[in-house]
């Protein structure tokens, strides 16, 4: 295949001098980070520092509602996803997302997955796809006898795994997770974290989390975000490194203060 090999195959998403604006307010400024393929990258930092905004820039979710714009570049496998001829629908097809609050469709468990596959023209054996997706999300055994029930009849943790199964059904390359466990109890959280380790074999995961233990336990790389102290009050990545370095010998004093719980 004649691929454009100007980019490093090791990294699936890269940002260059990325600024994100809400109207004229610069919410996120000057982010340069590279997301490694088949690794888990965590984004941590205090509330309101732009973690979710940055994550949502990776699959062009920001532009759906508010008046947002970006400067700089976000590339996916070497392609600028904000280029004029790029269809955001195609971007989101390849870069899936799981949200903070579980949001299954008000359809049956089966339909949650089948609908998602169908809109992308899936013509194969639907029963098989539904089963495989649910197995990958470690939910099959719990729901195999009630596939016709509403997705909303499940517990919060099960709903979140259904949302993961739904995202997996269309085989994205990257899965973005926006605090996927913050609305769940510790046991459901543990299940999601175990699931992430399994999924790493085949997918790249970027996760925003408030929970520093979770980032330390579950991720390979960590990006530390914080508001800059200038008058603009934009959020930016102040340090990005392997997770064990961020948590044991960070270079930035602010990172150290944050991960040791001195503030935030």
């Amino acid at each position: 295949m004649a691929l454009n090999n100007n980019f490093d195959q090791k990294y699936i998403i890269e940002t260059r001098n990325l600024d994100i604006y809400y109207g004229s307010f610069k919410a996120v400024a000057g982010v340069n980070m590279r997301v490694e393929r088949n690794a888990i990258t965590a984004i941590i930092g205090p509330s309101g520092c732009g973690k979710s905004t940055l994550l949502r820039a990776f699959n062009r979710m920001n532009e759906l509602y508010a008046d947002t714009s970006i400067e700089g570049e976000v590339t996916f496998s070497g392609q600028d996803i904000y280029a004029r001829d790029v269809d955001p629908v195609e971007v989101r097809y390849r870069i899936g997302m799981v949200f903070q609050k579980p949001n299954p469709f008000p359809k049956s468990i089966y339909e949650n997955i089948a609908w998602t596959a169908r809109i992308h023209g899936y013509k194969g054996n639907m029963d098989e796809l539904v089963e495989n997706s649910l197995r990958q999300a470690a939910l099959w055994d719990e729901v195999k006898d009630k596939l016709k029930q509403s997705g909303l009849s499940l517990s919060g943790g099960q709903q979140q795994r259904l949302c993961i199964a739904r995202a997996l059904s269309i085989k994205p390359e990257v899965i973005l997770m926006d605090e996927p466990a913050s609305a769940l109890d510790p046991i459901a959280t543990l299940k999601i974290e175990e699931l992430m380790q399994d999924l790493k074999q085949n997918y790249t995961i970027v996760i925003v989390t408030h929970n520093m233990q979770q980032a330390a336990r579950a991720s390979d790389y960590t990006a530390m975000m914080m508001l800059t102290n200038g008058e603009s009050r934009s959020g930016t990545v102040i340090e990005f490194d392997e997770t064990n370095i961020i948590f044991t010998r960070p270079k930035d004093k602010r990172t150290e203060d944050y991960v040791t719980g001195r503030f935030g």
Partner: protein
Amino acid sequence: MAELTVKNLEKKASTISLRRKPRWGETIIQGLLFFSGFFSIFITLGIVYELGKEALLFFQMPGVDLLATLTTTEWKPHVNKFGIWPLLTSTLMTTLIAMAIAIPLGMGVAVYLSEYAIPKVRSTLKPILEILAGIPTIVYGYFALTFMTPLLREIFGKDVVQIYNTGSAGLVMGILILPLISSMTEDALSAVPRSLREAAYAMGATKLEVALQIVVPAALSGIAAAIIVGISRAVGETMIVAVAAGAGPNFTFSPFIGAETITGHIVRISGGDLSYDSIDYNSIFALGLFLFIITLVLNIISQAIVRRFREVYE
């Protein structure tokens, strides 16, 4: 020091009062609220009583028979023929034509406003639609008579379309009901949580897929309610049909021929000099009761539909 604190606490405890305090403002407001709720129920019951009483008088008159009313197709009060079907069919005709206009257009407008329009377009278009709903219905009536009817006659031929016809009344009634349906539907669509749309977009769904396959099904109960309210409005609409649909009961299914609806007939009869207790006078109460029953049944159906199709999305 410690003793002192305990003593203070004891003293405080003895002065705490949990006794109920009189709150006159609350009591008065509560009474007024109860009265307004009771008042509207009382008025409704009063109307039903009056309708029922006069209708009963009608059915007790010589030559009137409920079965004949429900099964025969001639309404000629001067010869004691009271078959309700000619009036009922024209009511159904105008309603059907109106809904054929109002439902598809109303849905289209609502989906456009809630899913596609940018905020600026939405904030301009919504008030315009609401103005449409605020035009007096008599104006719509003359619009039907002086614009829609000539237009229909132009299209289908003057010998086919009569000057008074149910088609033109129905079409204009559809325009009247359009804003009602679109505004209620838009409210139902807008109430679907943003998280549900985001879920679909994040799975790579297109705008149309999100709108028609996720948002519309989730709002189905509200949409059904909007349609039923629209039908009730069409059945009860009076001024347009009185002006444009024609005078005189006519048992026909052609939209190009004049035929009087139930409401149109009531208006015409009650406008004349009727002596109290004449058979004509009493007949309009029976017709009113029929109308009331139709809209009541529609409301009951709508509530059943809403319960049945309610998609709980949270």
